[in-house]
């Protein structure tokens, strides 16, 4: 009785794991096959990976999209971490009643659906396009600005700051350090894992962002990876091998980040619900 329960646990978890992994396997295997083999249901690796890759380079501006995505994601991550951690630290270390009210108002922004903001946001950026062309429609800035601070990230840093040893702050103050240098020279180095987790979460969501870039990035030179993949995928006569290698390449950065920093990622996810 007990043994059979064990068996079904392993069987169930194996099936779920297989279903979770299979689309990845299929995508990687198919990226090495010819388009006809992909539709033919071939499940063995082929020899057409380089050919698919070359076709992708010829028909799309892959490098440009990769560079655009990288620029946007890295800039967003660095700025988001700085701004949100500063705020999370500020809300937790210097408490005051009025600031707590503001914090709760900020949390309300998590309830605002993006669909309700996208039209006014689009008009905002369209309106400044003439006077401030560097931040108007079709620019990196217009993609980055609306996502650079989120209430979730501030909340995340505030929660983590609760665990930060406050004696270190006092020690810094006694040594005569300014509040800003305490933050820069004591807080940031001590909270490395928190920053790592926040970086992973922010990088992933920025790299994978689709709807807002779809609206605001209109010319071919500004396309990001999800936009490129979406355009390839909606073609009428799809070259499956080529599209799947594009998807593999587009997934690689986030998959790598996840595998290299899995521990911090899980810690970050759990830290946010404690």
């Amino acid at each position, binding site marked *: 009785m007990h043994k059979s329960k064990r068996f079904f646990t392993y069987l169930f978890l194996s099936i779920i794991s297989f279903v979770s992994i299979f689309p990845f396997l299929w995508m990687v295997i198919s990226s090495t096959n010819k388009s006809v083999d992909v539709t033919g249901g071939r499940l063995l690796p082929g020899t057409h990976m380089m050919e698919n890759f070359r076709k992708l380079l010829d028909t799309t501006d892959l490098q440009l999209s990769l560079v655009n995505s990288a620029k946007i994601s890295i800039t967003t991550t660095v700025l988001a971490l700085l701004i949100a951690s500063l705020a999370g630290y*500020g809300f937790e270390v210097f408490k005051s009643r009025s600031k707590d009210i503001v914090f709760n108002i900020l949390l309300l922004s998590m309830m605002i659906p993006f669909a309700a903001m996208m*039209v006014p946001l689009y008009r905002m950026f369209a309106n400044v396009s003439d006077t401030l062309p560097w931040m108007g429609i079709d620019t990196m800035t217009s993609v980055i600005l609306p996502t650079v601070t989120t209430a979730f990230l501030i909340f995340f840093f505030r929660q983590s700051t609760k665990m930060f040893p406050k004696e270190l702050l006092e020690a810094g103050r006694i040594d005569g350090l300014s509040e800003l240098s305490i933050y820069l020279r004591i807080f940031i180095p001590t909270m490395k894992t928190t920053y790592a987790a926040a970086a992973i979460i922010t990088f992933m969501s920025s790299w994978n962002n689709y709807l807002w870039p779809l609206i605001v990035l209109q010319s071919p030179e500004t396309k990001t990876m999800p936009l490129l993949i979406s355009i390839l995928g909606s073609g009428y006569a*799809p070259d499956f091998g080529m599209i799947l290698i594009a998807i593999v390449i587009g997934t690689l950065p986030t998959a790598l980040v996840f595998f290299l920093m899995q521990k911090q990622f899980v810690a970050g996810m759990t830290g946010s619900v404690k």
Partner: protein
Amino acid sequence: MSIRRKSVLTGWSFVLLSVVLIFIFYFYPMIQALIMSFQTGTGSNLEFTGLDNYKRLFSDAMFFTAVKNTFIYLLVQVPIMIVLALFISVLLNDKKLKFKGFFRTAIFLPCVTSLVAYAIVFKYLFAGNGLVNTFLLNLHLIDTPIGWITDPFWAKITIVIAITWRWTGYNMIFYLSALQNIDNSIYEAAKIDGASAVRQFFGITIPLLKPIILFTSITSTIGTLQLFDEVMNITKGGPGNSTLTISQYIYNLSFKYSADFGYAATVSYSIVIMIILLSFLQFKVAGDKNA
């Protein structure tokens, strides 16, 4: 200046940038959308027309199709996903289980992909001559290929399967971390009292996880009400609007049809109202004041 006052001012300077940015990029657009929802016109030529858009909303068949579809996803997918994630996390929390790390990583892996990338992979897997149909035909489970993407009913099922695949692992992580915080002695005591595994699950695990279950159901509800990327890339809302979501309808109204920003804003406020009502309802159902 007193030390206390100085500290308050320093505190404000630390949070100021975030507060300003969130007000500009979240609250200001919210208010703008509310104002626009009373305006009509194409592109930037908007003029006040009072409640016209709201009247139009109640006689707009396509809006109701989008709402109906979105609620079908919500009512079918969110419960399936939460039960599945809970079940998996309880199995994975077993101390004696082997290969725990592998199972956890494998089940979480879908969260790494971009919504666009996985949507396109699913579109191909579930195509008429795709691998899923080939597999089912070979196993003689079906005689003719299922129209996963071309049939109005199956297209919805495909979207539900896709979202479940992508998000179950994400919710599982929250449950796992909450389970690890439960003191094992509670279960030991229940075992001594002769409580079965099922009773322990409903008597201990579920009540203790209630705040997290509430949290995940609210975030999943908000996510589903905003569903866009998958539908856009798997079915484009078709066949015949049978998978169209509210977000996609707003996108179409603003950027695909004749740029009716005013009416799009009105539709977008329907999502705001639904999120508020549903979150309130979930709080009430959970009946937990501290959650």
